[in-house]
């Protein structure tokens, strides 16, 4: 009998949990419809921790519009159908901002649910243009920078700062992110060619390819080793590709997207050198901004480890810009907040500036720090902002 009562109690508790929370004007709710389990957790968790740090800072400073920010969470289980449910469930709990998974494919169901309900949604660190107006709707934003900006930044920086003339383009066709990096590179290249650079060849491979020997042979048969190889790829295949390139004796500069940032994999390619990655902030303790280094310490205190890659930072930026927009609008009402966000032009944040327009809720231009890995040790060697924003045609390609 007691057992039965317990079941009934459990059932009642579950039902009451499922009921929508009554709107409460005393608090502002941020809903995280992100992955707490499954493979996306590795991407979502760090950025979410960073977001939590910003929320705690705001609450410690007296809250937003005089109200405390509360956090509700729902697990997407790295599954699209569960993502839609997670989005709906944080909305039912009164979320004023719906934070969704890093990746467009996995975040979009929850973002679409928020869009449907007329609420603001933010992708933690998606770098596809679809993560915003183009793929979700007018209330959706991304906290990171478009992938094409990374490719364009690396090409221009290598040409202008490193004097690279002969470029080679090596694309891993696995994801839209990879293609995005190379799209940015492709847009930048003609401009550089007008100034004396040259694209000496291009090739593709697949992330899962065990060997890229054929591609390497084609690079080796070039009359002269290219100055720089634009490598548009991501983990896990990136490590194997880099290792094979170096093992074959190709010592060209390797230019990458932000996806390969982090030192966790460097032991697989000992003494890697001449390797360059664009990052929004440095996790290596040598960021030119003292505030970033301070953030890294706070992050370590809170989570017990240093940030594993630069993808931690957009989470912090996201809450930062959203809170500013809410403060300026004087309300959490979605349209007013969106209007304030769209007014942001070169809004300073801890990790570079942010600009949102009614056409693009994403960054088509950004300051990047360039991290060079030298003899297996990564460190910041410079920074670069592309000379002009990547145009819509190149982003939408």
């Amino acid at each position, binding site marked *: 009998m007691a057992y039965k009562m317990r079941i009934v109690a*459990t059932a009642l508790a579950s*039902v009451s949990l499922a009921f929508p929370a009554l709107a409460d004007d005393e608090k502002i709710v941020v809903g995280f419809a992100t992955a707490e389990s499954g493979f996306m957790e590795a991407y979502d968790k760090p950025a979410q921790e960073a977001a939590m740090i910003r929320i705690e800072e705001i609450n410690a400073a007296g809250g937003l519009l005089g109200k405390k920010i509360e956090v509700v969470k729902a697990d997407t289980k790295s599954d*699209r159908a569960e993502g839609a449910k*997670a989005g*709906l469930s944080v909305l039912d709990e009164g979320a004023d901002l719906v934070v969704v998974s890093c990746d*467009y494919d996995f975040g*979009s169901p929850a973002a679409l649910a928020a869009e449907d309900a007329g609420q603001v949604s933010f992708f933690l660190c998606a770098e596809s243009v679809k993560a915003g107006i183009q*793929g979700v709707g007018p209330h959706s934003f991304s906290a990171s920078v478009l992938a094409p900006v990374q490719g364009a930044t690396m090409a221009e920086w290598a040409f202008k700062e490193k004097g690279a003339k002969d470029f080679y383009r090596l694309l891993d066709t696995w994801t839209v992110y990879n293609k995005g990096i190379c799209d940015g590179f492709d847009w930048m290249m003609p401009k550089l060619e007008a100034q004396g650079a040259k694209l000496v060849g291009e090739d593709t491979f697949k992330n899962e390819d065990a060997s890229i020997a054929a591609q390497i042979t084609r690079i080796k048969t070039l009359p002269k080793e290219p100055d720089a190889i634009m490598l548009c790829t991501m983990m896990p295949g990136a490590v194997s590709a880099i290792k094979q390139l170096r093992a074959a004796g190709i010592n060209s500069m390797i230019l990458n997207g932000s996806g390969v940032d982090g030192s966790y994999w460097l032991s697989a390619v000992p003494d890697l050198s001449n390797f360059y990655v664009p990052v929004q902030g440095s996790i290596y303790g040598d960021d030119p901004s003292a505030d970033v280094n301070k953030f890294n310490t706070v992050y370590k205190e809170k989570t017990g480890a240093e940030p594993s890659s630069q993808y931690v930072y957009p989470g912090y930026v996201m809450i930062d810009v959203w809170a500013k927009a809410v403060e300026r609008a004087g309300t959490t009402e979605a349209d007013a907040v969106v209007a304030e966000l769209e007014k942001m032009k070169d809004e300073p944040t801890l990790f570079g500036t942010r600009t949102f327009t009614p056409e693009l809720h994403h960054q088509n231009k950004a300051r990047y720090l360039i991290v060079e890995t030298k003899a297996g040790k990564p460190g910041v060697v410079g920074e670069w902002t592309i000379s002009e924003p990547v145009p819509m045609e190149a982003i*939408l390609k």
Partner: protein
Amino acid sequence: MSAVSSATETSLTGEVIAAKKQARFALARKTIVTPILLSLLLIAITLITVMTGSRPFNQTVIDVLVRVIFVVGLYIFIGNSGVLSFGHIGFTCLGAYAAAWLTINPIMKSSALPGLPDWLLQTRLIYWQAAILAALFAGVAALIFGKVLMRLSGIAASIATFAVLAMINTIYSNWDSVTGGTSSVVGIPIIRTIWPYLIGAVAAIFIAWAHAISRSGLALRAARDEPTAAAASGVDIPKERLVAFVVSGAVMGLGGALMAHSIGVVTPDTFYLSLTFITLSMLVVGGMGSLSGGVIGVVLLSALIQALRWMEGGVSLGDATFALPKGIQEIALGVIMIVILALRPSGLMGNREITLTRSNRNT
């Protein structure tokens, strides 16, 4: 004298035959209780959902109804023919993408999917019209594949259906201009009211029932149980299997279209191994040879998954909050499925259907 007696005999035999031969629709009348009861079950679940007014719960039940369509679709072929198919989720994929092609705003379509033929680029249908066309499209695809595959039987047929799944998945993952490749296709109108899904599930149940009691369905079940005898009695096994394959392909296509409208995004990897195995296990746990088994399997396993998820999220009992570790849901589900199959190897329902009377063997 003899003439008279022979006349009587003839008329007697006639009467006997007439008595033995069932009236038209007698079988339908005898068995219609099953789909009605199953539909009532789904309607009851839907009504409760609508009454709670919770949006995530609503979405969960939509998911359940979509899975009912999938599993019923599987049952139509697997249950009646006895051939295990791993390929049906391929038809779901076809249906989902067809729905996407037909319902996305033409402006978005021409930039995201430029490879579509012009007439399709210009088309924009209401979701239910698109769902019907998607079902037909999947049915036609099933007809083409089935024409070849249905000549095979046993494990060869199962593996061949798996090959179909792999083929569809590879094509849809790589034909960038038409399917968007591995990236998500967006812009599909999202339908969050539960009724269309209920109608879809009920329609699937009635289609499955009508097929099962049709001449073709009965012949196919005879062939499943006694292939040699059935063939000797004039049953054209490949043909009957093909009929079931096409009907079930169309139902899977309908399910795919509705799934697309429930999430608003389609990608090829949604329609691959994990969906194949979860739907197959729901059918197997419920009872492969029974329509009721399929529906009950989905409802039970979904309820179980939901309950475990709630427990993962934490349930407060008095002052203490009781929560299972994350990820336990998948493990517990596996264990429960093993237990059910160990105790009832032919599934919860076996070959039986739910009816009001006790003589409920499904023949």
